[in-house]
């Protein structure tokens, strides 16, 4: 397996690794994938009063392409509004990272993780969600 320079860069220097307080009402948490499939992504967003994603963090169990896809996803959602973030497509990630066909599922997972985090945040805005209501 050869990796593109961008995948290597994200793998070596992942952006926004870490965790946000998932009990915070302004934080949305998405956890997607499954250990037995070889990749699990946790992506978190913190949304301010104006509906702008002001912070994003991730942790990923998975191959280098999965790590790079989620790292890139956090970079892209930061500064975007919630609605803008929903327009990010896995194909954009594939293109940006030059992922080969066998790694497309990594980009799909990253898109899913963004959506899961946004959905979690939205559900918290409707009614105060019970703590630990992360989307699995």
């Amino acid at each position, binding site marked *: 397996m050869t990796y593109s320079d961008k995948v290597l860069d994200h793998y070596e220097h992942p952006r926004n690794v870490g965790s946000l307080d998932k009990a915070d009402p302004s934080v949305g948490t998405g956890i997607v994938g499954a250990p037995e*499939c070889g990749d699990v992504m946790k992506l978190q967003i913190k949304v301010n009063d104006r509906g702008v994603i002001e912070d994003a963090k991730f942790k990923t169990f998975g191959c280098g392409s999965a790590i790079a896809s989620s790292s890139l996803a956090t970079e892209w959602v930061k500064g975007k509004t919630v609605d803008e973030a929903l327009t990010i497509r896995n194909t954009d990630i594939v293109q940006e990272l030059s992922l080969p066909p066998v790694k497309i599922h990594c980009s799909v997972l990253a898109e899913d993780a963004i959506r899961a985090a946004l959905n979690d945040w939205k559900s918290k805005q409707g009614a105060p969600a019970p703590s630990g209501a992360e989307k699995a």
Partner: protein
Amino acid sequence: MASGSDRLVYLDNNATTRMDPRVLEAMLPWFCEKYGNAASRSHKYGWDAEEAVERAREQVAQLIGASAKEIVFTSGATESDNLAIKGTLEMLADKGRHVITCTTEHKAIIDSCKYLESKGAAEVTWLEPDKRGRVSRAQVEAALRPGTVLITLMAANNEIGTLHPIAEIGALAKEKGVWFHTDATQAVAKVPFDVEALKVDLASLSAHKIYGPKGVGALYVRRRNPRVRLAPQMHGGGHERGMRSGTLNVPGIVGLGEACRIAREDFDKDQAHYRRLRDLLEQKIRSRLGHVELNGDPEHRLPTTLNLSFAYVEGESLIMGVPDVAVSSGSACTSASLEPSYVLRALGVGDELAHSSIRFSVGRFTTDQDVEQAAEEIIKTVNRLRAMSPLYEMVQEGVDLSSVKWGASH
């Protein structure tokens, strides 16, 4: 990349080995100076080549306790496996077509058996090993039935190094009058392997796994008690007692012979070296990392092989983090397929841990420095990846991962 060192460490000796310089030296004259065809009976070029081939045949035979006439040269272990299985089933078609093998065999065995199954030429019993990768004599005995013509079980597994109880199964096969083939590719030169002691009738081996050249191997074919005859799978000039036609690869065969001679001569030294370095590697890693599982059998195992699962870290990402260390992964993503290792699956290792597995295999040329560097880089990378692993975080928080309802698979 992750480490600053340019020094490469090779810990993938179960995949292939560096050729021993003594082997290269033995081979060299047989390319440009003594280039005769071993089947040429009318001149010195041919006689010399034939003599070299017969010397190599003797060297191979001596390493495994056989007689020279029982050695058939092939292009490698895959061909030897194919010839043993297909040649037996074809030769004994009148007696039956039942084969007993195991789910953790090398693909050369599995796919040969499946091919014969698909042609209606074999019925195959696939034994399932225990969680350490072993099958027992009792399992084989229970699978025997009228019409069983062949038992084929590898002596040592390439991924996990587990050794089957070959001597016990050999004795059983002898009692029952069933031919017994073993793929000994990983076992020869690494653990004691004697065809008489083990009572095997057919054994495959390969030069490049034992510091010889690629593209040459051998099949041991018993000549007495019982006299094993195989239907050839390669037709032509009737070389190798008619079992394998084709002009002999003289330089390769000379290399295989020399590799076997050295393996026999250095056997004790090599063994001690493998074991010491393998154990050193395991100890170094375990002393500084938790959540590390051994795959395979701690006791009945090749001295060269260490297969570990680093929980909460995916194998491909781990390999990516140690570009200066050549190892292989049982994880999905390293190969074209997206499935984790079928060997680890057969052991009942969860897919999660199978995705986290790394195989280290030391060799004759591995040094203490290699082991130390590899351990350092692995430890550093595992720690780095665990720090960004959501699974590790959850476990630290006291979450039982098996209780989590995970999302749809991809």
